[in-house]
């Protein structure tokens, strides 16, 4: 094999790997990304302020009959945040908030899933943001939508100060509340 052939082979291998990654991120274990969302509501001076993340990847295996092998992993691109204005978006990417230059991704990884009632589950795991890792419990309700997809929805609280999201003049919870309600809605295609 000559040098050109080797390069060709490496290129092909890279393309196959990239292709596999793209499929995983787009359809990650059946998550319909376009129908799913990761939203949040923070409270600023007593006022609800909504936002969401535009880009994230999910690897969800949710089998109510086999919770031991069920899991949910999320990588959230923090710079993809959608807030009230471009000005506030660029602000929260800064060092005192998410510091996305140094910590671009928030990561949730479940360690166990248990049933807590009819169609109700709890995903226990860790949430890592801005270099800090904390335990997190995400209660999830499962239902079916009109198209027969499984819709897993859950809201949990992130205490932003535990992750130093908002430092200095922004650390005061009377300006921006410590509790941020994060709502995850995952639409999962039925298993084939």
């Amino acid at each position: 094999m000559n040098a050109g052939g080797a390069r060709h082979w490496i290129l092909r291998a890279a393309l196959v790997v990239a292709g596999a990654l793209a499929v995983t991120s787009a359809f990650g274990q059946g998550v319909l990304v376009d129908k799913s969302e990761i939203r949040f509501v923070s409270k600023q001076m007593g006022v609800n302020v909504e936002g969401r993340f535009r880009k994230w990847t999910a690897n969800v295996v949710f089998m109510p009959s086999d919770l031991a092998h069920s899991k949910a992993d999320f990588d959230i691109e923090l710079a993809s945040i959608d807030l009230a204005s471009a000005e506030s978006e660029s602000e929260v990417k800064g060092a005192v908030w998410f510091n996305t230059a140094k910590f671009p991704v928030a990561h949730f990884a479940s360690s166990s899933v248990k049933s807590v009632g009819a169609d109700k589950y709890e995903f226990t795991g860790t949430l890592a943001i801005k270099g800090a890792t904390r335990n997190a419990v995400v209660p999830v309700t499962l239902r079916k939508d009109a198209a027969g997809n499984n819709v897993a929805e859950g809201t949990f609280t992130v205490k932003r100060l535990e992750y130093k999201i908002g430092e200095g003049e922004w650390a005061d919870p009377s300006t921006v509340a410590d509790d941020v309600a994060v709502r995850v809605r995952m639409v999962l295609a039925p298993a084939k």
Partner: protein
Amino acid sequence: MSVTDPTRYSGFAIALHWLTAVLIVANLLLGLSMVALPISPRKLQWYLWHKWVGITVFLVTCLRVAWRALRPPPPPVAMPRWQQRASAVSHGLLYVLLLAIPVSGWIYSSSTGVQVVYLGVLPLPDLVAKDRELATVLRSVHVALNATLFAVVCVHVAAALRHHFVARDAVLRRMLPLARSR
């Protein structure tokens, strides 16, 4: 002068007129200042105050419209017909703007995903869902309506001063708190 002097606006109407004048001038200055501030807790606070003042203007204007129906304003002072028409049109426009501008601000706030909580205690419903493109349009609408209000208020003030100092009639005096009709 009696409380029922038919050539003057009622005391309540006069009070609400000048309250509106103070509120809209203050809120215009607050609005222009707050957008120029860098992001800070102060900026958030000024936005909240701006919304409270705006909603207050809306409520005061509703009250004025209702009061106007109950206690009709004094009959027009003698003036050329074109001036009476211009007066009717500009006053109508002022009422419309005083109602439309706060509502445009409220919808704009909703479209950015920021709730409006009147005086920090009364949450108002979100009129539209968060939508960046809509927000860009609504911001321009809010600014354009305010520019229109500014222009109409300038005409309003100029006309009042002209009536008082040039035509020397009772138009301004009947809206002044302590003046007496002659």
